[in-house]
Structure formats: C-alpha cells, structure tokens
C-alpha cells in the first residue's frame, strides 16, 4: 500500500510538473507553435492545435511508464547480497487495475480520435469547401521531374519566375489561394514515364498534399503571415515524396506579401510574359 501511495503522489506531481514544462514549451512561440513551427496558414493552425493537445495527453502516459520503470529499478530491486528468492507478493491478477487500464485506454483513444482528430478534420474539410474560400487566387501548380511550375491564369502569368529565372511562388496574405495540383511534364508531354508522385509541401504552412499523375487535386489555403524564404527557410515549396534523383533539389522560393504588393508583382510578371 505504501508503494502505491508513493507512486500515485509521484505520478501526479511528476505529471503536473511535466505538463507545466510542456505548456511553457508550447507557449514559447505565438499560436502555440513552440515545438511545431508550421503555423503560417489556416490549416497549420488546425495542425498545431492537434499537436499541442496530443502533447498534453501524452505527458501523463509518458510519466506513468517512465516512473514505473524507475520505481521498479529503485524500489523493487533485489539487493545483490540477497539470496535469489521469489517475491513475497505473487498477485497474478487485479480486476480493478486491469479493468481501469482497459477502460482508460479505450476512452483515451476514443477521445483523441474525436478530438483533435475528427474535430480537426472537420475544420480541414470545411476549409476545402469552395463556398468558404471566396474570390481565391488560382495558382496552377505543375510538378515535374524536377521542378515546381506556378502559373496564375487570372493574371495571365504562364510561369512565375524571379530575376534569376527560378520558379517562385507569390501569395497574398489573408486571402484564399486555390492550388490546382497536377503532375506531368509540360515540356515532354509525350513521355508519360516521367510522371511520378510528388508531394506539395510548404513546411511553414504545416500542410502537404501529394500530387498524383493523372489526377487534378485542389488545395485551398490561406496564409496568415508575411513570410518569405529569405526571412524563414521553412517558407519554401519542397517536394515531400521521393521522386527520383532530383528530389532533394525540388524546391522553390515562396513569398507571402500584402495584397497591394501582390497586385504589383502580378502586373510586372504579366508584363514579362
């Protein structure tokens, strides 16, 4: 009984301390992004809330098992001088303990499936409804081996390039962007063999979607922060699905700018051709 009380007290105190530390870590950056980073979009906010909630759920479980391991090593350890003998207590079952364990593990799993998983997915699904994304900027994204090509049909930009001729993605802040994702090679459209799966990922936005040959996939996204690859290297378009030797280099720069800056940029790009 003494061990049980001691363990219980240590577990509660340890969990509270660990939760306090975890919360401090989570809150060490805006939006609870302490350990997570990818929060610069509406979908990233859903992700970080899920992540932070799961940290809080995981902490007491972690403390329970680790404490049990330490407890066994210290409290239940047989002294080296002792003669090997069977433990005095030989409990082979404890219905209360087993029942509680199973019940808690079922309830915890149901909980985290409902929240943050199902509740978060509801937000993700809602964020993908065209009705919830009025007046989006349409960006046609073409993934090929090995390049991201961005075109803006509304602005008559066929391929958005920076001054060095590299593909670059510009987005206005706080305005929905409709990414239309396809995987094919517009320069070698006869060669279907080079159409492979790519992954459209912007680490700072906390979301990715794979681009499948033969399919057109749509991702609605709203950036909520003014960032660029130069200011934050996580703000980049990166291929996240291995797509051949060029995979490590399949990335493009990203600029999230204000609405007026975006309009000016689009005008200049369109004039370029």
């Amino acid at each position: 009984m003494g061990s049980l009380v001691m363990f219980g007290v240590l577990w509660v105190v340890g969990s509270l301390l660990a939760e306090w530390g975890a919360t401090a870590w989570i809150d060490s950056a805006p939006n609870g992004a302490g350990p997570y980073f990818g929060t610069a979009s509406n979908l990233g906010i859903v992700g970080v809330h899920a992540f932070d909630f799961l940290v809080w759920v995981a902490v007491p479980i972690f403390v329970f098992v680790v404490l049990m391991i330490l407890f066994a090593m210290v409290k239940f350890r047989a002294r080296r001088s002792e003669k090997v003998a069977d433990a005095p207590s030989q409990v082979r079952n404890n219905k209360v303990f087993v029942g509680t364990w199973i019940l808690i593990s079922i309830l915890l799993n149901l909980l985290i499936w409902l929240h943050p998983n199902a509740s978060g997915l509801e937000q993700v699904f809602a964020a993908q409804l065209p009705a919830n994304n009025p007046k989006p900027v349409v960006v046609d994204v073409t993934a090929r081996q090995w390049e991201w090509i961005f075109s803006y049909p509304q602005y008559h930009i066929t391929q958005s390039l920076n001054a060095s001729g590299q593909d670059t993605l510009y987005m206005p802040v706080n305005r929905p962007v409709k990414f239309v994702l396809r995987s094919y090679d517009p320069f070698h459209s006869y060669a279907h063999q080079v159409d492979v799966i790519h992954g459209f990922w912007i680490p700072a936005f906390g979301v990715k979607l794979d681009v499948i040959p033969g399919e057109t996939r749509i991702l609605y996204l709203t950036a909520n922060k003014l960032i660029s690859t130069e200011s934050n290297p996580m703000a980049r378009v990166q291929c996240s699905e291995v797509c051949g030797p060029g995979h490590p280099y399949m990335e493009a720069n990203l600029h999230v700018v204000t609405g007026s800056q975006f309009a000016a940029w689009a005008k200049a790009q369109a004039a370029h051709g």
Partner: protein
Amino acid sequence: MAQPLTKDGMTPKPRPVAPLPPVLRGFLWAAIGFIVLAAMAAWLDPSPVSPYLTAVGAIAGWFGAVIGWLLGIGGYEHIVKPMMGFPSPAVRTSGWRRYYEYALDHKVIGLQYLGASTGTFFIAGLIAMAMRFQLMNYRPTLFHYPQDYLNAVGIHGTLMMFTVATVAMVGGLGNYFVPLMIGTRETMFPKASGLSVWLVPLGVLTVAMSPLLGQWTTGWRGYEPLAASDGNGLLYYYMGVFALTTSSLIVAINLTATILFKRTKGMTWNRLPLFAWGILTVSLLNIIWLPEIQTTFILGMLDKVMPLNLFNVFGQPLGYEYLFWLFGHPEVYIVVLPALAIWSEIIPVMGRKSLFARPIAVLGLVFVMLLSGMVWAHHMFTMMRYSEMLPFSFFTEMISIPTGFAYLAVIGTLWNSRLRLTTPTLLVLMSMFNFLIGGLTGLFLADVPANLQLHNTFFVVGHFHYTIIGGMVFSWMAAMYYWLPKFSGRTYSEFWGKFGAIWVFVAFNATFLNFFILGLHGMNRWVSAYPKYLQPENFWTSIAAFFLGAGFAINVIHIVWAWVKGPKVRENPWDAKTLEWRTSSPPPTKNFDTLPVVVGSFYTYGDGVPDPVEMPVAGIDTKDSRV
C-alpha cells in the same frame, strides 16, 4: 556420432565427402545457373543495346542462380536425390563447419539465421553511418550524386527490414528456442527449414549488389510509378526481397506447424510460453501477408520489364502504394510482436514474480495481429480521399489498446517484484522506454491534421526507428544476453553488459530524439542535400549516430567474446522455469534425453509452487504427443 534426423527408416548413407565446401560449390553452381539462363534469355530476347545481359536476362539468370545456389549448398544430396529414392545422407552434427552447410538441427539453423541477421545488421548499419556522414553537411560530401545516396537509403532500409527486423527474432531466436520451449526434438519441416536459411545470404547479396544493374532511388518501399522509370537495380530489389520473404515464409509455416503439432505432453495452450505465442502470431501474420507482398513485387517487376502500365498514369498510380502498405503495416507488427513477447518472458524470471494477467498479455499479441491488417493506409494520409481519413485514423489509434496490454502485463509483474537488475532486465526496461516514445509519437502521426505536416519528414523516421531499434533491437539484445548461457554454457560480464546497454541507450536517444526536432523544423526524407539552416542539428545527430554504431559494435564484440571465452555458468543461471532450461547448455542435438511433461504454469512463482515440469525416468518411451 552423426545421426540424421530422417524418419524414413532407411539406413543413412555416410556423409559424402564433397569435392568443394558447400558454400563454394553453391557459388559455382549459382554462377553456372546464372550464365546458362541469362544466355538463354539473351538468345531468345536479344537487346540491341546490351548483347550479353538484358533486364529479362538478369531476372532469368537470377532464378538460375537461385536454383544453382540451393542445389549446390546441399539441396542436391539432401532433397533432390532422396526424392528419387536415394537414401538421405547424414548431416554434420559437430564442429564449426556445420554452420556453413545444409543442416537439419533447428538450433544450427537458428544460429545460421542469427549469423546472417547480425552480419546484415553490420552491413546495413555501415550504410547508415555513411548516410549520417553525408548529412553532417548541407551540401553533398560522400555521395556526390543524389542517386548514390538514395540507393544507399533503399539498401539500408530493405536489408534492415527483410533480413534483420523480421528475421533475427523469428528465423533466428524462433527457430532456436521454440522447439526447446515447447519440448520437442525437431521442427515439423526440418528439410525445408535447412534450405530456407540459405535464401537469406542470397537475398542480401542480391539487394546489396542491385546498383550494378542501375541505381534506384525509391527507398525500401519501391513506390510506383517512379519505380517503373527508375534504374534496373529495382529488379534485384524485387528479386532479393522475394528470396528473403520466401525464407521468412518457410520459417513461418515450419514454426506454426511445429507449435500446433509438436508440443510435448501437457503443453496446453494455456501453458504455451509467451515467446512461442509471439512467434505463432508473427508466423500467422507472415503466412497471410508475405504472399501478398510477393505478388505485388511480381506485378511491379512485370510492370517494369514489359511494361504493363499497371501503376502509371494509364493504370492506377496509387495501386502499388495500397498493395505495399497492406503488407507494410502488418510488417511492423511482425517486427515488434516477438519483442513484446520477450518482455513477458524475461521480467517474471528476473523479478521472481508470477506473470501478471497472462491471458491479457496473450490476447494483446493476438489482437495486434488481427488489427494490424486494418490500419495500413495511415501511411497515405497525404494521398488518400478525405472519406478514408476517419476510418484509418480510427483503427490506427485503436491498435494502441492491445499493444498496451504488453505494458500492462509487464508493469503488473514489476510491481512488488524482487527485480534482479541484470543486463537483460535493463535492456527490457530500456526497450519499454524507447517503444513508449515510438508509440506516443505514433499518436501524433495517427492524427490526420498533424500528419499532413509530419508525414515524410524526419519525425516519421524518428518514430519508426524508435519502434524498430528501440522496440525490436533492444529486445533482441536483451534476449541475446538472457539466452547466452543457453547458447554456449558461458555467460557475459555484467559490467560490460551494462556498459554496452547504457552506451547504446544514451546514443540511441541522442540520435533519434533529434530526428523529431529535425522533422518539425522541416527536414524531409530522402534528401542528400538540404537547406543550410538544418546543418547544426544534423551535425550533432550524426555525431550521436556514430556513437550508436560504436555501441552496437561494443555489444556484438562482448557477446562474441562471452560466447567463446566467457566464464562458465551452471545450466539454469536465472532459475527460469521454461523448458529450454531443462536440458544441458548448449543443448544436445536432440534437445532432450527424455521429453519433459508439463504439469503446471511456467510463470507462477511463490513459496510452495510445485515444479511445472516432470522429467520422466529415462528408458520409458515418451513420444511427442499432443494434448
């Protein structure tokens, strides 16, 4: 005296004096088989660009090499000729040479598997060291072209999965210990088992040499449609894995049949040791899923050679991915179930306490086995339809309930035990710690909104290395120290054992905890070069990884030393109750002089608990009999 384990009643022919050692003869015959069939293919299906070796020829030649190898290693005398009515020759039963020949003794076969796994662990581990060296700098250093690096990643993963993680504790420890633990003198199909182990070195060489046919960049998963346009080395990835999985499939059939039909008298299902339960559930998983992945790989191979357009834009680009993970997720439970089982084997012995909630521990293994086929598409959250996300995240989260039963049993056993803090105990506790982190990070990956960020980053790499190294490799090491006195009659040094365990534990966590941070920082998988801001963290991760590699080397050297030169110990140094300790160490060829009879539970301790085993008086006939 050499006695063959055949049952046909024929007088065994004396062991033939081979003109060449079997391994060399196997190589020679394999080369002949390769040349003959590759030449035939080149003649029937000539290629304008390569007069001698074509893609089709490489595959035909490979099958020729398999046949030549298996015949040369001993299949000719021991399987083909007896089928035609010749008497079965004897097998060598003593000396080191028996490990390099065809064997019938499950213990020799088990050690052959263990040796192959350990050797491959070394090869694939060196590749990992090279990968970590490359990642110390954000620009390429060791591998100058990405395909060199990506091919190394693919070989590392393939060898680790199919030769180490799914083989060491099943083909190795399973073959060695299951017959001993259930009280039988041989396995059900010793002849097939003796041949199957030789598929392992063949498969390892095939995968390791695959870049000679052309570098491949897909990693161990071989995703289509990239695979179809990738280097021809993928053909030998398919073939090598085919050999390795065939080997595991034979092990699974053999051990399942052995556990079903060869248990000694009194070995009821309620008394079956936990490790045997673990091997049984794993073997059922293998029997269900290995044929599935083999079929998939044959489709991939045909798609590449023909091409059939099965998995590209004209077919179903995601078809391969679904088929792969349908096997791929049960695969990780194939890896970890024996580890969970070994925890329940070691902790009651070391704690001198009855195994807590034994039926729950067994049910945990069984339910993990059943559920494991329902979670696979959680590897594909970024690829799938939205409607699939909710059910797959549901099953994925639910599988943690039966997995938790392994913890429930061990924690219940630890409570109020008199725990001997030996090296095996320490390694089991470390394995529990590591696998806990692997499991808890799985919560984040099973959560779809967070997965959309974490998928294909180093967070995932950290997660599965925590489950596989942290769960399986640590438990494998625990089992090796625990059973070392059984293997050799000698024991290890408690100081060096603990030193090695702590070294590996610290280095492992220093390496792979960093992977989670790297992943959250935006480090993606399969990159030989990465943005500069990730370099400092990668640098220190690599340093820790080199310490981890050295730590494994320390443990291997220590175990080998103890095996050969360690201090001798009495036959049951842990005072364990299971049957493998009821015979001499190392066990004789036929395991038991008289077969033990089980009359109680192996996992019940306490004053006045009767011995669970009765050894019948020698001379009375005790045949294997089922109860």
